[in-house]
């Protein structure tokens, strides 16, 4: 309880950020009390703790069957059940592959999730939503066993709403900010 209070105070004192002022699913709860976190398996919670980038979790209802994995420069969350596969990928490693001229020609992202511009696409039937937040690129993929009929893959609606529903963990965002500050 004391730990939770201290964490909350730290979150407010350090100005912990959510990925977007209007995002649903943002939590101010201590990490340990966040249902979407608490419902994860122990290994997944460890991965959250080790994540090098700010963490967004799948909503609580997916947590018992979700798996969180973390690498040196990435975070991944996977869920696969009843013909639905969800994959969240986050990394802060960017490549500068486009010239200034081409960057100017790139169309602006037409959607918004979590208060920031977002793009959607399809890749061999797999719906994807992508957005950035403070130097981290997030990608959420939705794959359906029933490629042709499942509405969750037939349109980007489900993927966009799920992206908004992801649960941000402020502590991990603060950790990311501290890391960025230290790097400077």
């Amino acid at each position, binding site marked *: 309880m004391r730990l939770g209070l201290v964490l909350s105070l730290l979150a407010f004192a350090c100005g912990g950020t959510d990925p977007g002022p209007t995002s649903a699913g943002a939590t101010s709860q201590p990490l340990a009390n966040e249902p979407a976190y608490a419902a994860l398996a122990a290994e997944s919670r460890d991965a959250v703790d080790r994540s090098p980038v700010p963490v967004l979790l799948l909503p609580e209802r997916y947590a018992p069957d979700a798996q969180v*994995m973390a690498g040196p*420069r990435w975070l991944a969350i996977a869920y696969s059940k009843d013909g639905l*596969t969800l994959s969240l990928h986050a990394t802060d490693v960017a*490549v500068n*592959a486009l010239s200034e001229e081409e960057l100017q020609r790139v169309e602006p992202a037409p959607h918004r999730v979590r208060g920031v511009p977002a*793009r959607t*696409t399809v890749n061999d039937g797999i719906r994807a939503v992508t*957005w950035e937040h403070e130097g981290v690129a997030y990608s959420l993929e939705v794959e359906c066993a029933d*490629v042709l009929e499942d509405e969750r893959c037939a349109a980007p609606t489900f993927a966009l709403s799920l992206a908004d529903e992801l649960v941000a963990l402020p502590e991990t965002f603060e950790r990311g900010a501290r890391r960025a500050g230290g790097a400077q």
Partner: protein
Amino acid sequence: MIREASVTRDVPHHAFDAHRSKRDVSRARSSNLGFGFAVSITLVAITLGIALALALPGVARAQFTYADPGTLMAPSGGAPRVGAGRVDRNVYAPGMLFPMEGLAWANSQIYGYGGYMGPGGGQCDSRNYRYPWYDNYCEERSWEMPLCPGGRGHQGQDIRPETCRDKAHWAVAATDGMITSIGTYSVYLTADDGTRYDYLHMDPATLAVSRGQRVRRGQRLGLVSDAFGSSSTSIHLHFNIRKFVAGVGTVYAPTYMSLIESYREHIGAATPDWRAEYVNQTFPLASRPFELAPGEEVEGHLEMRNTGAQPWRPGEVFLGTSNPRDATSAIASAGWVSGNRAATVDRVVAPGETGRFVFTVRAPDAPGDYPQFFNLLRETVAWFSDGGGPRDDILQVRVTVVAPACPAGLGEAWACDGPERRRCVGGTLEREACAMGCGDGVCLEAPRDDDGDGHNSSVDCDDARADVFPGAVETCGDAVDQDCDGADLPCDGDDGGVALADAGVRDDAGDATLPDDARTVKGGCAAGGSGAELSGLLGLLLLARRRRARASRRAS
């Protein structure tokens, strides 16, 4: 235009045994038989494999060709579409391992044989299993893709395995990493640097990995199949490279060049001596109109990158006509090296550098369509299509000659217009240059000198007589205007009467001479009875003048 020669010979299935990658040789060591027997069998297999490989040296290596990035296959077997996809030569995954065992064929699943927009046949058509590779990143799809022309297209690369057999060929880990997702028909491998490699359509029942498992580079992941959830697709591996591209976000990055580089390493392909890759051109692409008026000339250039092992030198590497090779081109201009050699490279171009071929095309006089294929060659040594590319039917300048419209009032009859003549036939303007000028709709002919006297018909008043020309010696009274001044020269004392027919003779040289008696000018140098009468009259006139003169002296 562009790119890559192909050896259209199919690679026979047994070539797999002869050209196994190093990974395959190492796996051959495992066996379900007794250890000693297994080792013996394995050693025999390895020896045979090596022997076969040595006996057919570099078959797969020498044959590997690929179209330029961004060159897409076309519907119904049409000509490849250069630049229709994304022209991106970045290797987004440098150092990655080719993600499949054995030989592989990267091409379109929809425009290839058996594809719903292909030239017919089935997916196992042997023509799907041969080089050259074709890019299919940004192939037509409705998928949003900010890196594709038009903002939409296929993402990733479709790759057919060595043969059309289902669940017979392994997909392998392109790098060390972790399996971060397994879906109904997808497997994601995430590398330590955050790059994700997606493998789609493997057989889910025989996957060799599990979610959360760390894998090593080259480790088998699953068997290439046609899995597509509740549906199915063709037997192929759909391979993605998922990257965070600055300014765009996480995208399915262009995969083609990473696959090419890794495949070359995979099969041990040696760099051909003579090979080129399209860079750009100033002439319109063959798919776009390039209309010229008859005789019109346009200068442009083609830039090619040296992707071979040898440098290009001016006077050695040329842009020649191809398909067929060495044919004299209808669009050649006077500036070409020859009728079938448009240009040589502009400078010494080392491997990896880009050279330019500058040349002028001339529109033929007759309206029509004039496609001309080109290719590079090292003169007397090799055409680039024989070594590594491009193919002879890729580089093209396509001129469409359009006759200008007829001006108002011009009919079918020729009419002069300055130094040329024109007419309008069937709504098409016809023009003809007149070297000697135009008169009354007719091109004037060049003056001739038929008599060879050094003066042509424009000045020679009698081009049939060599003694008649301006400045010639005039013979008086012969009724011939030798000097072309407009009249015969009258002899001395001539009363101005009409010159009569010459009574003179010609000497042995053909020169006219007057008879001795004609010099006395008898009524215009005429001979005959009338001359006597005129002489008497002249004598009376002289006598009369003498008498008046004496009378005048007496009076003074």
